[in-house]
């Protein structure tokens, strides 16, 4: 703190003042830094340590040195099990759902909202509503609407469809929910990104008679690229993060178990080494991939700066 100086140098500042400012900086940062050290640094270090522990007589103890990677070996052994394969497949499906279904639909929706289609403001607000409602409420309403005693019950009964949330259709219902509820959030972010496009560019497009599809592909997408990149990364992270949707809709049954839900459910038990190992393996595999994709996407239209 001895070197502490104002960013804007003030001539009236003496040593006494600088000392006072040091105390100010220290006090302002004390709690946030401590909280960060405990809740981020310590938690993540402990998470790594947990993956080198095992349950011995109901207690977590470090594994012996000759069997240091026992938890990892157990995890890679478990990959042969059908249930684990299903879980990895179900989790990977959210990459497709988020990045290749929800995001493109949201992009198209956002473009027309940005172009001020009739009722754009109303649609924007309605689409955004699911993003602010508790997920429990959303899943309940969704499930009640599509259940046999619900709003569309008579329709499904007449078609001979029963129990959409059981069996093979269950995973489709969870994916459909993710798309239905996820579009609004993406639309808000994308329209806000599009609103930063200079008006003059769009006006000149219009005067040149460029068709909407060309304008969308050649102008709007490149100029909204930073937002698209962010949403694509969020979508990639959903492979590991999605857990409440399958938990509320199917309790993780019928091939809807995900990595996130597995970690959540196993964290309720005593053997915390198992979910910690799963999390660590996923971080080690996922983080470099996600960071590389982010780097690559940012490079694509690197000169967009608004």
């Amino acid at each position, binding site marked *: 703190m001895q070197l502490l100086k104002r960013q804007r140098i003030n001539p009236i500042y003496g040593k006494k003042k600088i000392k006072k400012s040091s105390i100010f900086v220290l006090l302002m940062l004390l709690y946030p830094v401590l909280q960060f050290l405990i809740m981020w640094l310590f938690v993540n270090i402990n998470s790594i340590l947990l993956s080198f522990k095992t349950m011995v007589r109901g207690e977590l103890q470090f594994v012996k040195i000759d069997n240091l990677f026992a938890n990892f070996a157990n995890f890679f052994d478990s990959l042969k099990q059908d249930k684990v394969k299903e879980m990895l497949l179900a989790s990977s499906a959210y990459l497709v759902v988020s990045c290749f279904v929800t995001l493109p639909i949201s992009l198209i929706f956002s473009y027309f909202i940005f172009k001020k289609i009739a009722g754009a403001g109303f649609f924007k607000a*309605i689409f*955004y509503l699911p993003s602010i409602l508790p997920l429990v409420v959303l899943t309940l309403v969704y499930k009640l609407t599509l259940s046999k005693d619900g709003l569309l019950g008579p329709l499904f009964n007449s078609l001979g469809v029963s129990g959409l949330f059981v069996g093979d259709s269950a995973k489709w219902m969870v994916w459909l929910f993710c798309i239905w509820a996820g579009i609004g959030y993406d639309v808000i972010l994308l329209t806000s990104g599009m609103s930063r496009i200079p008006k003059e560019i769009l006006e000149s497009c219009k005067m040149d008679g460029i068709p909407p599809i060309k304008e969308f592909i050649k102008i709007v997408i490149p100029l909204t690229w*930073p937002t698209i990149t962010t949403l694509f990364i969020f979508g990639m992270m959903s492979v590991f993060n999605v857990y409440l949707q399958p938990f*509320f809709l199917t309790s993780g049954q019928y091939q809807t178990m995900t990595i996130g839900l597995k970690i959540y459910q196993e964290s309720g038990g005593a053997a*915390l080494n198992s979910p910690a190992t799963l999390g660590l393996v996923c971080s080690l595999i996922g983080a470099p991939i996600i960071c590389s994709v982010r780097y690559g996407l940012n490079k694509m239209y690197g000169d967009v700066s608004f």
Partner: protein
Amino acid sequence: MKAAKKENSLFKKIDRHFEEAKYKASERKFEKHRTKAEKVIYPIIFVVFLIFALTFIIPFAWVLMNSFKSAKDYSNNFNGLPREWTFDNFIKAFTFKDQSTHNFTILQMLGMSIIVAGGGTIATIFFSSCAAYVVAKYRFPGRSVIFGVVIFSLIVPIVGALPSQIQLMKTLHLDGKIIGCIFIYSGGFGMNFMLLYSFYKNLSWTYVEAAKIDGAGDFKIFFRIIMPLAKGPIIAVTIMQLIGLWNDYLTPSMFLEEKPTLAFGLKALSDKMLNTGNYTLLFATIIVTMLPIIILFCCFSKTIMENTSVGGLKG
């Protein structure tokens, strides 16, 4: 002479006003002018939007409508209007108790949500604001390290820190306590830090320099000058944070199981009501749970939608 001059300037003003109005009208006309392709595509998209919007409106309207029905009325007519409108379900929803929520009523859960989400929001916004201001405006050793670590923690996805967090909370004896939940929420280096940091970074230093000449100290400057100047962004991030914490299921379900908040308790209540076939009570409970968020959204819809814009951040 003076009167003539006044009249002249008034005419000039009126002329300018008309010119501006004309320009705006032509601009609007230009914006509204649709090409042939647009004239075909726009109505189709409008219909698609309408259908999509109805998939949100109709289910919630159906839940609202059925919450006014008696159980018998619902079983005989679950898609029609109530034959007899009743508020009984809402009265029951407020007093309904079950062991699955440790006999907490909706009102008690609402209270818990206010304390936990409110406390967490106040704590995280305050500490984020303190940290963001100091990192943005002061130079001190370790400043770039702090900033770098924060960026790293936001960019690198870390999966499965929950087991470790549970162990830590048990060790600190914060498990099952409200203060424990608030401690988890109270981080000063999350997304709020980034948003407030960019605001403080662009904030003019002139007021502060003037205050310093008058002899104001750093704390006085921060609380009396900077905080009021940052009122707008602080309110925006507060609302967004409050909604996020209000809807949070994970933290209360793991660390506050015996004192459920609304988002967590509703799951247990809905399971119970679905098992006993008490649908109308469930509908009323859903409406009651949604109400605080809907009211907040109606009051601050513009602020909420304008500030959900982290998308522009480039890594």
